[in-house]
């Protein structure tokens, strides 16, 4: 009797999560997967096959676009980590109380406006008739207008800017939990600042680094607006291809296949990243 009630309570508790997972995550993916297996052979005629997946591997354009997207996303992740780590360290270890809250909030401020507005902000700054170009001319550093928009560097800037918070938050959390006395013990035992960073701080922050990197990588890979708007004619991005297949080509079959390939390949990259850094997903999630 008692066990029955416990079991009922258990199912009631888990029901919202189960409904959420099933209705909003599992079912759409199953549907998309079925669509991706359809090959169009004529007007309103479809056959089940893996042809759509074959298209991806046979057409170097798609394959290259994915490789480029992955490469750019990995670079953006590395850059975000490089910039975010000192910021997180400063917030977690060198400030207290009010300053800490203020700095944390400042990292959050860009997220009070939509991604579109943020991206347009960068366009205003970087464009040929924009603020940076004008400033450089005013200072006499350049002779004429400089175009800083519509290239890979602009995409990178936008991605890093958009992702910064998602790197800083887990890093601050893990660095906060690093006992100051460990750092002092390191100094006391004769270590240099760099040795402490390498042997104590980074190993301790590893779960935060890994989870931050996963989130930033996935966000960059799945970003659509930033690469399209800031990249201009060089904005070859895999999500753009998927959008094109769904919206302008009406080719849902290929679009679905691309969606699944993106899911699979990005998971593979994350898995390889975890293996290389010697972390496990469970460990990472448990500690941050």
């Amino acid at each position: 009797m008692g066990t029955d009630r416990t079991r009922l309570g258990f199912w009631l508790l888990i029901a919202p999560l189960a409904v959420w997972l099933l209705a909003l995550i599992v079912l759409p993916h199953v549907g998309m997967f079925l669509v991706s297996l359809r090959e169009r052979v004529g007007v309103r005629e479809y056959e089940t096959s893996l042809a759509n997946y074959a298209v991806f591997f046979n057409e170097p354009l798609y394959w290259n676009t994915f490789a480029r997207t992955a490469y750019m996303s990995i670079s953006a992740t590395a850059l975000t980590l490089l910039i975010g780590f000192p910021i997180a360290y400063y917030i977690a270890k060198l400030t207290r109380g009010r300053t800490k809250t203020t700095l944390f909030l400042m990292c959050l401020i860009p997220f009070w406006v939509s991604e579109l507005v943020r991206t347009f902000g960068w366009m205003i700054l970087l464009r040929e008739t924009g603020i940076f170009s004008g400033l450089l001319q005013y200072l006499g550093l350049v002779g004429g207008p400089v175009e800083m928009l519509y290239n890979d560097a602009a995409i990178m800037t936008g991605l890093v800017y958009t992702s910064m918070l998602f790197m800083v938050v887990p890093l601050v959390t893990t660095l906060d939990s690093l006992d100051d006395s460990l750092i002092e013990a390191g100094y006391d035992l004769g270590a240099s600042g760099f040795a402490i960073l390498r042997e104590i701080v980074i190993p301790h922050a590893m779960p935060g680094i890994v989870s931050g990197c996963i989130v930033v990588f996935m966000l960059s890979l799945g970003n659509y607006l930033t690469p399209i708007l800031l990249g201009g004619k060089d904005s070859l991005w895999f999500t753009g291809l998927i959008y094109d297949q769904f919206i302008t080509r009406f080719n849902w079959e290929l679009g679905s296949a691309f969606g699944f390939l993106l899911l699979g390949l990005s998971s593979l990259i994350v898995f390889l990243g975890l293996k290389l850094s010697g972390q496990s997903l469970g460990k990472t999630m448990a500690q941050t």
Partner: protein
Amino acid sequence: MSQVPDLECRAISKSFDEFKAVKDVSFSVPQGTFFSILGPSGCGKTTLLRMIAGFQKPTGGDLLIKGRSVLEVPPNKRPVSMVFQHLALFPMMNIGANVGFGLRQRGVNRADTKRQVERVLERVGLAGVADRPVNSLSGGQKQRVAIARCMVLEPDVLLLDEPLGALDLKLREHMKVELKQLQSEFNTTFVYITHDQSEALVMSDQIAVMNHGVFEQVGIAKELYYEPETAFVAGFVGEANRFSARIDSIDGGILGMVTPEGRTLRGIGAGQGLATGTTVDVFVRPEAVRLSRRHADLSAMGNSGQGQVRNILFNGANSQLILRDQTTGADMNVALPQTGEFRDLAQGDTVHFGWEPQQTRVYPGAGGRHGN
């Protein structure tokens, strides 16, 4: 032993804004000494230790290790090592890597490091654990690893910041003995800070009692216990019954006093400026107080009275009796001799007590400050 002390502080002080944490403290620690700094929390002992380690810069004075000033030497270059309060073992490394950490920083090659790590672990009784993770060890074993991690570097001075605080009571008793043994085995100078008087009394060659940023008294355990120089030391080191009183007569070495409630006391002065009319603090140790069922046995003792048993704290040889002094109405702490004579003593009984003036120490009253 060498003439030059391992550690010497000259009028060292540290201020945080308006607050002076350490005020012109001077002391020196000869080689091979177990030196303890004993004081309540907030007395400045941690600040002092951190200045020695190099984590804080003194605002005045000088600090010498083996005769050389180390004020300008950063913590990672100082020939001192520190065992932290919570040990600060690196959880991301195994035991061997923890112990070998300092050697690696010095650029000692891998084979030598491994050999030295094995040797020092053996000396602390933990041979063969180098490959195990830190968390596989018990509290006492971690303690020894923390010490081994420092000792492998052969520091001139080992600083210990209340390392036993996190251990349970039984283990703490055991570790006291073990720490002392380790210290004499390594023959290294230990500077140990604690707020636990029994740790300091048991282990130390020399103890400094610190309060409000200054050393109240420096001496061996016995001196501190039997001849405390200040009221604070008398109250802080060991147990004591304390009375506030006023001097009404001085007869040779013996001071006659009276408490506000009318109890007369006789004791010996232990401080400057004791004259008739001075307000004083009077301390007497619980074991100095004798008990008897008959007043006549104690009438010759110089201090005597009658009290009612409020409570009996039975603890074998360390049993204590809480008496309510019928004159002052205050509680007194008296050692209960386990001779069998008072075995049938029960709560509510009335007994006589008394003690010698020679075991009664009188200090100029500082007002307010209390010992135990």
